[in-house]
């Protein structure tokens, strides 16, 4: 064949027909192997991403609802705790008062008893002094009878006796 560049002849027709077949083959291959699968993959991917986003939104909503619920519950728990505490405080106050009252009563009783004992002791001591004085009086009477006459002696005796009583009895 002569080298050709551009001729309007049967060869051109032949070339054109071959080219049409070639582009048809290419169309089939490219459609089935390239365009359609890639488009399908891209569509699947965008669908999947849309679904993921939707799911995430839904999860977020759920989480928000849960959070609200828990916050409510926490708030009520606070209230409950407050109530329990205040009850405990009231109870403790009551206990304290009753304990104090009891303690005061006890103290009162102890004081009263002590007073009574002191009184009894005083009584006892007074009785003892009385007995002592009687004894002394009888001793003195004896001594007066013995000495008998002189008033001065009597006076001195009384003085002496009183001194004895004063020193020994009243001081004890």
């Amino acid at each position, binding site marked *: *064949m002569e*080298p*050709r*560049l*551009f001729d309007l002849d*049967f*060869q*051109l027709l*032949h*070339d*054109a*027909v*071959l*080219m*049409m077949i*070639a*582009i048809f*083959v*290419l*169309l089939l*291959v*490219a*459609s089935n*192997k*390239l*365009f*359609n*699968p*890639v*488009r399908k*993959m*891209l569509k699947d*991917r965008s669908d999947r991403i849309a679904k993921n986003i939707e799911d995430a939104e839904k999860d977020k909503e759920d989480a928000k609802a849960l959070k609200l619920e828990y916050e409510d519950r926490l708030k009520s728990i606070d209230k409950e705790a407050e109530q329990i505490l205040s009850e405990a405080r009231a109870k403790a106050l009551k206990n304290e008062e009753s304990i104090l009252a009891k303690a005061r009563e006890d103290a009162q009783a102890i004081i009263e008893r002590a007073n009574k004992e002191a009184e009894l002791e005083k009584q006892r001591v007074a009785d003892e002094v009385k007995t002592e004085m009687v004894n002394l009086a009888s001793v003195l009477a004896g001594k007066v009878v013995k000495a008998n006459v002189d008033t001065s002696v009597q006076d001195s005796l009384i003085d002496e006796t009183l001194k004895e009583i004063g020193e020994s009895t009243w001081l004890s």
Partner: protein
Amino acid sequence: MGHGILLSAAEAEASAGSDIDFMIHGVFSYEIFGQTVWITTTHVCLLIVMLIIIGFCLAANRAVKKAGTVPTGFLNVVELIVEMLDGMIKSAMGSNATKFANYIGTLFLFIFISNISGLIGLRPPTADYGVTLALALITFCMIHFNKFKYQHVSGVIKGLCDPWVFWAPINIIGDIAVPVSLSLRLFANILSGTAIMALVYGLLGWIATAWPAALHIYFDLFSGAIQTYVFCMLTMTYVNDAIGSES
């Protein structure tokens, strides 16, 4: 074979000056309908381009099948290409995009890989009128199939006689001009780039070292991408017009 499928610098250098070659050569011939036709270097390059695209498609398919939840590496490239093509088709065709997306995408890949195949030393298949004519004829058929499908015969006739019945011949010429201009535009643009590169390598010999890379960037990458985009855009616009003018 003697004739270069390749336009590589090495081969051009080996025969510097003596062989400025950007023609299409026959590889072998056979008879069909009583005519002798040739399988040419274009067909060889076409086959290579097809294999590249099919290989890419198979690799992409493998990557898609093995894809995990998170896309990585090669799959990202595949997604980028498919999304870019779909976005372009969607912006040009709107609601009609889904029906034509696969064909336009295939067309885009084929023309683009063909146009830049000069970079790997092939003679671009799109620098053969037999290739671009076929693509333009497909576009032509798509236009008129959809015109008859969506506007019916009455709509088509009304369109032809717009604005007045005597304009019909001019409208018919206008319709026929569409595939001619489409195919010639793509063919001539890529052929000119191929011819210029062949001249540079053929005439300049060893001087043509390294710096023709800039020319490759312009003629193969830039011009190739632009012409791909133009061809696909025009196809989409014409088809969309054919569908949309009624609805």
